[in-house]
């Protein structure tokens, strides 16, 4: 390869370093310049392998570029630009740095040619995105942030364990179709190894596949208004990418994906928090992609990939719309919102574009991508999957297209003082909206990007009337049973119950039986060991008074001074720790990049 290869991910990660030192208009220009450069870098990418090296006796492949990675990189960089426009009014540098590192790491995963590179970026993503939750501040967000981090570190450990086992078993850490999988070319009769299953578990956790889904719906609604937009786009979709790369055609994924599509919809009925409702629809929509990857035919993988592309744009648009409402009113519960259409007409209109796109209305992006997955299920003679996914799309329109906008923008007028959000937020929403419509009207360019050649025509008369039938009669159901859908002031139990209540049980164990045990041990030592110690101490005292005291006093004084400084350091907000972690991640990536050179 004679072409110059600029890694779009490194562009973001190294590009994050100067952000804290820039101010005002220069910083804003810079924040947009880097995503634009990254988009250009992706457009000029040539398929091939870059940065092959050897590390600790293992083959390392820093970047591998093919059609699958280019699709994801294209939408990631586009999304980074839209997300940065949306976040331009934010003055805190830390959030921009975290967003850059997050996007850069997601791109790092997309281009990773080996498992070690993948793992490094995978973890960096978790830390950088956790910062976007911490940055919200407040006890609720910080707790959610720690839970988010804890779950992702656990998932990362499973992934790492899987990588080690897989590497030992196969002798290679190169990232590709898994051995023993349907198209891995390995020994089919043996099936996948334990290592492969652990890797898959790590991937499934990031894809928020139930029961490993609760981290998403727990943390995303607690993130900052602008941070949640980034989060909605990257973590789950990198997981879809790695699944599509390593596990296409795995039967388990069809089952999980189909269940997931309905799972998210059921919870969305119960939800009162506007962004948590949208988060449950991420779970539902990613279900289509996971099922598509599991079906594994060319049409299905194309469908999963294109749906990920469309999904990133419309889901970000929906999160931007809900974020605008939160930004302006400071409220997030549907029971406290309503009647905003008078004061926020542009927000309503742009949000609705996203809602129609996710619901797969004709001439919106979801129509040309979701139908590919459903059609692939049909072609593969999976009637139940097809029917379940169709039912889930009814639920999607019911919530994101009808319930959420009705209770947020129309419904009971709560007389909230509101206005349109800052101009940059509206511009970002408009950018996403234009893309949602453009993809729906002209699917050609997106289809051309897909990994396999596309022979799929979304605009047949039958498909259009069928979709409209499903959607409009869902609307009829909504109108008739509106009262049953009234939001209620509750939270819903999800699988996070196990570790949220489980942690409490652990604390109880630590406070009661363990503490009692400790007390018993110490009373024994008081009765038996202490008299002996007293004797020894008297002996020591004589020696101590003589020589050691002077030295100790000196040391103690300096420790005291140091302790004061340490205390000041410790009282720093938790976000500072998170920032330090991100700085560490950046440093690790830089070292890695240099070592690779």
């Amino acid at each position, binding site marked *: 390869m004679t072409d110059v290869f600029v890694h779009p991910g490194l562009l973001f990660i190294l590009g994050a370093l100067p952000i804290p030192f820039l101010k005002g208009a220069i910083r804003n220009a810079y924040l947009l310049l880097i995503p634009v450069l990254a988009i250009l870098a992706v457009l000029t990418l040539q398929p091939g392998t870059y940065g092959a090296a050897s590390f600790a006796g293992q083959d390392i492949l820093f970047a591998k570029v093919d059609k699958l990675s280019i699709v994801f990189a294209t939408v990631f960089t586009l999304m980074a630009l839209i997300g940065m426009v949306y976040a331009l009014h934010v003055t805190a540098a830390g959030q921009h740095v975290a967003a850059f590192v997050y996007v850069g790491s997601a791109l790092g995963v997309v281009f990773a040619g080996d498992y070690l590179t993948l793992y490094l970026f995978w973890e960096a993503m978790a830390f950088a995105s956790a910062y976007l939750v911490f940055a919200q501040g407040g006890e609720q967000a910080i707790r959610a942030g720690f839970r988010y981090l804890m779950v992702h570190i656990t998932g990362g450990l499973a992934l790492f364990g899987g990588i080690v086992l897989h590497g030992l078993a196969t002798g290679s850490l190169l990232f590709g179709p898994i051995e023993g999988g349907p198209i891995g070319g390995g020994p089919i009769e043996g099936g996948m190894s334990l290592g492969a299953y652990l890797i898959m578990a790590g991937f499934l956790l990031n894809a928020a596949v139930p029961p490993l889904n609760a981290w998403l719906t727990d943390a995303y609604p607690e993130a900052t208004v602008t941070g949640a937009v980034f989060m909605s786009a990257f973590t789950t979709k990198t997981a879809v990418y790695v699944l599509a790369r390593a596990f296409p055609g795995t039967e388990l994924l069809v089952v999980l994906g189909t269940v997931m599509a309905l799972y998210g*919809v*059921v*919870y969305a*009925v*119960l939800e009162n928090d506007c962004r948590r409702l949208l988060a449950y629809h991420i779970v539902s929509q990613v279900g289509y992609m996971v099922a598509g990857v599991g079906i594994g035919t060319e049409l299905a993988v194309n469908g999963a990939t294109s749906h990920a592309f469309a999904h990133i744009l419309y889901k970000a648009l929906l999160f931007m719309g809900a974020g605008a409402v939160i930004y302006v009113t400071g409220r997030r519960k549907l029971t406290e919102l309503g009647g905003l*259409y*008078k004061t926020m*007409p*542009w927000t*309503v*209109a742009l949000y609705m574009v996203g809602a129609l796109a996710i619901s797969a209305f004709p001439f919106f992006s979801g129509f040309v991508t979701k139908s590919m997955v459903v059609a692939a299920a*049909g072609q593969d003679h999976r*009637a139940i999957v*097809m*029917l379940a996914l*169709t*039912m889930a799309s*009814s*639920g999607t329109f*019911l919530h994101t297209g009808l319930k959420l906008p009705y209770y947020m*923008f*129309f419904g009971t007028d709560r007389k909230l003082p509101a206005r349109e959000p800052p101009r940059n937020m509206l511009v970002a929403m408009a950018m996403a909206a234009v893309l949602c419509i453009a993809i729906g009207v002209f699917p050609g360019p997106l289809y051309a990007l897909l990994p396999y050649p596309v022979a799929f025509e979304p605009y*047949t*008369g*039958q498909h*259009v*009337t*069928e*979709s*409209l*039938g*499903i*959607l*409009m*009669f*869902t*609307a*009829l*159901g*909504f*109108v008739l*049973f509106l009262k*049953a*859908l009234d939001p*209620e*002031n*509750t*939270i*819903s*139990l999800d699988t996070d119950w196990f570790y*949220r209540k489980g942690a409490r049980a652990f604390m109880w164990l630590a406070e009661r039986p363990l503490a009692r045990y400790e007390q018993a041990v110490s009373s024994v030592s008081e009765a038996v060991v202490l008299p002996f110690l007293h004797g020894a101490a008297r002996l020591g005292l004589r020696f101590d008074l003589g020589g050691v005291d002077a030295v100790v006093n000196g040391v103690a004084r300096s420790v005291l001074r140091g302790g004061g400084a340490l205390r000041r350091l410790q009282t720093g907000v938790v976000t500072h720790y998170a920032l330090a972690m991100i700085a560490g991640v950046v440093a690790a990536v830089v070292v890695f990049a240099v070592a690779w050179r």
Partner: protein
Amino acid sequence: MIRHIVDFFGDEAHARLRRRLFYLVLVLVVAADFVVPREHAEYLWERLPGWSAAYGFGSCVLLIFVSKFLGHQGGLMRREDYYD
């Protein structure tokens, strides 16, 4: 322009017209489903005109009531201070 469209969906004054248009669209969608050419209908239901309308309505009702049942009777919905 945008404001007028959004107002049309929100203002009480247009409620009658809105409802009529909505029912008209429902009728048109079902009517169109009867005349549309069906090239590849692999499954039985794909040959039934109006099937998607019935399935959409059924799905919607099913989702609402099954979810609410799970939420209320199944104990998924809890008070907001449940974890505090």
